């Protein structure tokens, strides 16, 4: 058992011992395909109240045969290409037996021995706020298997209203098409695992394979976690059914910490299935510790699935047509860093804004410059209590124009213009607006000196303090001059000019 007391006793040993352990993580990602009908029946997959999306096959009515959905095969072939897998000439289906109420046939039709695709490799960037430099990671994909989803179960505890504890079953999801992606145990941290899932998600959405809403269960992730000690493999546990990026991260780290605590106290990790609770803790799921006997057998009702040359070609052509995903385009073509590219692509509104900026921008404006000014813009808009990012194409155009003029404007003037355009109802082209008001940065020393002289004369009292070397007064005078110039002189330029003025007198 894992107790609070043990934590304190091991806390000291932790640092020296930790380096001997290495987390080993493998993932199984269940991707719900966004086909119109289920994998083996033509029952619609659209959302509906409980048990409204059921055909006889889906509830295992005897005598109904499976009818394989061609679109599911097509999507599997596309996914195989994305994950650089090998697609054998033919594949086959197997029955995996469970006895759960949400699996009405008593078995799941899946692919065990002869999956539709295998031996892939998938590369992605690993980045994090606290990670100095993003790095490229490649994972081995063991196989892709087409399989049926189960129904949904709601557990009801005992109550006066509903009587003894019971499970309620909804078969709407039963028989929906899944592709399970099995990776080799090659992830070393939870961050690597979540970056893999995030990247995969964006690709699946882009190529129209999956709707990608994790909270709706479109992608469910199982993680196999173990700790190897001095390069000796440890016993692994499996965390089932995680459906948010945050949960995947926390639960994997929780499980690693839990196993470390057991192992460092000379305990034994039990091979078991665990679930992640709402906090991300992992909890034992099945009370039996004996390994489940799935009694795999070849599905007799489905002959060999021979992959036609034409199907492969169609998959390739479609991928070709769909081109790069937004995050890849932002990263590889426009030059955003891996992290920003993914974050922008994950936010539809932000993505729309950035796409507009890219369309309007001068070629010389870099991705880093756009990012820098977007951050400034965000602060401005939040302070003015308006929604970020801006929705209009007009604004995006003015925004990029301002960025390309950033060296001909003072920083304060630029920020002020951003504020005006982001919060006001300006419809005038920003260049015309700048021209009309002569907002260009004043760089000529003579002109700046004029401003300084004028202000020093105007406020003789303050000028006296500036002369005596009072720092605060110096700053005050500087600010007055900047304001007097309508923010058209850069702060540093004013400071130099005041010093010049003081030296002269």
């Amino acid at each position, binding site marked *: 058992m894992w107790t609070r007391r043990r934590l304190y006793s091991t806390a000291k040993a932790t640092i020296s011992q*930790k380096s001997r352990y290495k987390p080993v993580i493998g993932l199984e990602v269940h991707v719900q395909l966004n*086909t*119109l*009908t289920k994998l083996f029946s*033509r*029952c*619609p997959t659209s959302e509906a*109240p*409980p*048990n409204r999306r059921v*055909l*006889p096959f889906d*509830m295992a009515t005897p005598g109904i045969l499976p*009818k*394989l*959905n*061609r*679109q599911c095969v097509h999507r599997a072939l596309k996914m195989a290409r994305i994950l650089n897998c090998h697609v054998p000439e033919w594949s086959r289906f197997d029955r995996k*037996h469970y*006895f*759960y109420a949400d699996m009405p046939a008593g078995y799941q039709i899946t692919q065990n021995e002869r999956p539709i695709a295998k031996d892939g490799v998938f590369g992605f960037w690993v980045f*994090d*706020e*606290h990670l100095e430099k993003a790095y490229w990671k490649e994972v081995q994909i063991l196989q892709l298997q087409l399989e049926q989803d189960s129904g949904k*179960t709601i*557990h009801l505890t005992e109550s006066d209203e509903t009587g003894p*504890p019971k*499970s*309620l*079953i*909804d078969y709407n999801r039963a028989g929906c098409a899944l592709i399970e992606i099995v990776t080799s145990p090659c992830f070393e*941290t939870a*961050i*690597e695992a*979540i970056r893999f899932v995030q990247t995969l998600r964006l690709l699946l959405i882009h190529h129209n394979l999956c709707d990608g809403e994790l909270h709706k269960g479109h992608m469910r992730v199982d993680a196999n976690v173990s700790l190897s000690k001095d390069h000796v493999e440890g016993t692994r546990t499996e965390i089932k059914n995680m459906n948010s990026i*945050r949960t995947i*991260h*926390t639960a994997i*780290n929780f499980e*690693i*910490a839990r196993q*470390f605590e057991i192992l460092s106290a000379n305990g034994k990790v039990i091979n078991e299935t665990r679930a992640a*609770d709402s906090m*991300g*803790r992992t*909890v034992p799921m099945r009370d039996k510790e004996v390994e489940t*006997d799935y*009694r795999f057998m070849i599905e007799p009702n*489905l002959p*060999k*699935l*021979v992959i036609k040359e034409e199907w492969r070609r169609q998959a390739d052509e479609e991928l070709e047509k769909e081109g790069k995903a937004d995050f890849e385009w932002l990263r590889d073509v426009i030059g955003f*860093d891996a*992290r*920003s590219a993914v*974050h922008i692509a994950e936010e539809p509104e932000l993505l729309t804004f950035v796409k507009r900026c890219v369309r309007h921008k001068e070629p010389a404006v870099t991705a880093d410059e756009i*990012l*820098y000014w*977007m951050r400034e813009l965000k602060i401005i808009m939040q302070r003015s209590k308006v929604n*970020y990012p801006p929705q209009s194409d007009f604004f995006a155009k003015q925004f990029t124009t301002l960025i390309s003029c950033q060296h001909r404007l003072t920083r304060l003037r630029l920020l002020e213009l951003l504020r005006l355009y982001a919060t006001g109802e300006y419809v005038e082209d920003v260049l015309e607006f700048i021209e009309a008001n002569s907002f260009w940065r004043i760089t000529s020393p003579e002109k700046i000196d004029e401003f300084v002289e004028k202000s020093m004369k105007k406020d003789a009292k303050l000028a006296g303090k500036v002369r005596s070397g009072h720092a605060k007064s110096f700053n005050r005078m500087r600010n007055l001059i900047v304001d007097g110039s309508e923010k058209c002189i850069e702060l540093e330029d004013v400071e130099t000019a005041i010093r010049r003025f003081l030296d002269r007198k």
Partner: protein
Amino acid sequence: MLRSIIALTKRSAHSGKGKTKTPFAGDEVLVPAEPYNSKIENSSLSEMPPIDASLISHLERLSLVRFDSEQAVANLRNSIRMAKKLELVDVEGVEPMHTVWEDQECPTFEDIEEEPLPIEEVFRNATVRFDDFFVTPPGNVPLESKERFDLNVINEWDTLGKPVAPEAKTTRMTERKK
């Protein structure tokens, strides 16, 4: 399959020879009237597994059929012996057959929706119904956790990052500092 063997095992314990029937009157009966007794000696078979309580309960759980008498267990033993005889068949280099349709290719169907069953049809065989759900005995509920939760301890394992969980999705811009 296991289930059917056990079911057969049970039935053979107390049923005699019935009247032979064919789907269509006048068809030839292909099943021999008398059982064929194998001439293979039991001594040439591989060793029988010990049939103990744990194996019985394992088989009961898999097949969902209860062994209700000693006779049923004896019949199981006979069935295993029968299967053991098959081990003597030479299958060297022979790919196991799994269907009689081996030369056929799996047909595929277009992704076109059909009308799902009306809800009353779906529930026609259900004895218990709760609103629009089927009802079953409670199963596979994750156990409660009383374990403490300290993100700092947990995330120390992310050698990459600081001990914080990643932010939930926000519109926060996360670009590098310029």
